[in-house]
């Protein structure tokens, strides 16, 4: 007795539904791109790509849409966060994978992942209350600065760096380590010469994904970066990022002003996609290797 038509139809129907579910992610991605680009691109046409991306003056109500300082600021903050977060995060990952006992691992890993769960507004708030005054009093300047933002963002990207680097380090086969010990290497020599190089592409990916998180971070940054519309010349200067620009003005912007914010979004989206592509590429290369 062959499977009834009804049962066959049911299986086909279910598969159809599941395919459409799977396609929904692509559809949403498509929607997001389309709508941000539809709103953001006309201004590039009207004002000129060069005048937006390399323009220094942001005065959207007066027809100036230069976002160059914000692009630069976004990268400054991102690299600042990386300088703060990468060494700390990598050290933590090495400690977790190579030095800590099993019990410590069981406690530390979730505790550190909890850092990722704290909302970014809370980080921003604590930055305003504690980091900003310390920077202002000890180093001068307004306190709302590249330095403050880098410190807070550096802390915020720790969980990303730790968990992905940790996975990469744990992925290094035990035999590599044993081989190194057998040749009389100390633990640190083994880690430094064998383990870290073997895990390098995963570690690199963790840095890039950390950068992705930092460059996309919004609420914490607008609370502590000071949002000034110029390229910072020192780490104590205030600055405004691409994300901050959107969040600060979207609520009240109209007309070309609003379109300018979408143009900012287009630039941000392109930067993020490039970063994601690089991160994915370096993770994939690891797998092939």
């Amino acid at each position, binding site marked *: *007795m*062959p*499977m009834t038509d009804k*049962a*066959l139809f049911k299986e086909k129907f279910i598969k159809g539904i599941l395919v459409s579910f799977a396609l929904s992610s692509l559809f949403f991605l498509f929607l997001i791109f389309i709508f941000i680009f539809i709103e953001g691109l006309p201004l590039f046409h009207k004002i000129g790509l060069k005048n937006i991306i390399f323009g220094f003056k942001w005065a959207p109500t007066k027809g100036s849409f230069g976002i160059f300082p914000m692009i630069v600021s976004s990268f400054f903050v991102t690299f600042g966060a990386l300088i703060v977060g990468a060494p700390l995060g990598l050290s933590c990952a090495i400690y977790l994978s190579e030095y800590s006992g099993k019990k410590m691992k069981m406690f530390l890993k979730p505790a550190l992942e909890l850092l990722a769960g704290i909302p970014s507004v809370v980080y921003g708030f604590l930055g305003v209350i504690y980091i900003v005054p310390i920077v202002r009093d000890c180093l001068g300047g307004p306190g709302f600065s590249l330095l403050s933002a880098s410190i807070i963002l550096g802390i915020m990207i720790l969980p990303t760096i730790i968990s992905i680097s940790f996975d990469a380090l744990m992925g290094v086969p035990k035999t590599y380590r044993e081989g190194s010990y057998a040749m009389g290497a100390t633990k640190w020599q083994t880690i430094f010469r064998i383990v870290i190089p073997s895990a390098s592409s995963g570690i690199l990916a963790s840095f890039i994904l950390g950068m992705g998180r930092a460059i996309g971070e919004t609420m914490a940054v607008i609370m502590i970066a000071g949002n000034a519309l110029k390229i910072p010349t020192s780490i104590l200067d205030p600055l405004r990022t691409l994300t901050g620009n959107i969040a600060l003005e979207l609520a009240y912007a109209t007309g070309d002003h609003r379109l300018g914010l979408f143009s900012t979004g287009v630039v941000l989206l392109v930067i993020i996609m490039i970063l994601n592509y690089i991160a994915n590429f370096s993770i994939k290369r690891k797998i092939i290797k």
Partner: protein
Amino acid sequence: MDVKIRIENLRLFYGMSEILKGITIDVYTSMITGFMGPAGSGKSSLISIINRMIDFEEGIRIEGNVHMDGSNILDGTIDQISLRRRVGTVFAVPIPLPRSVYENIAYGPRLQGIRERSRLNTIVEESLKKAFLWDEVKDRLHTSALKLSGGQQQRLCLARTLATKPEVILLDEPCSGLDPISTAKIEEALSELKKEFTIILVSNNTKQIARITDFAAFFYMGQLIEYGSTEKLFTNPSEKKTEDYIQGKFG
């Protein structure tokens, strides 16, 4: 003797290599037929064609015919789902579902649409009794099947297959990981079960084949070397290879 399954010139290719090289064999109703042979002889592949579990493998090609009660199970007139209702399988490793003993047995009947508690209760009890497991688990039907011993788990798997009320039962080295006592219990169960079911037992334990099967087939390198009554095969084999295998000279 009625023929239950007629296999004609069956060939199985896996990529470029030929796993089964033209097998022709009749399996008789209400008999235990033993498939024996060393590893790589193709005996397990053969039964995975009979239940069409081979469909889950990639890069395979099948030629030839397998008739069950006269209809070809390879040409699409029978779909896998209804075929597997008629052909039950017990695998080499006991694989209980992560549920209670009761729910493991009831899994097949529920798939067939049986919902009434009383009917399920009866099926569960009957199946466990037939698998010689009832006395050991009747007080803990609702505890996890994972808590049973290895031997009990394998009988649970047998009972679970029985509960679907198949016509044919395939056992793929069901005792390979079991202790002698559990093995004996399964063998005892099988000897009873052949009254109701057609059984194919794959094993590389020649003593087990000799003990409980009615017919035996010896496979070697994808070919059927010899097939006949178990008595004939073990007392007076026609092929030198069969004799060597039975005497433990290889395999």
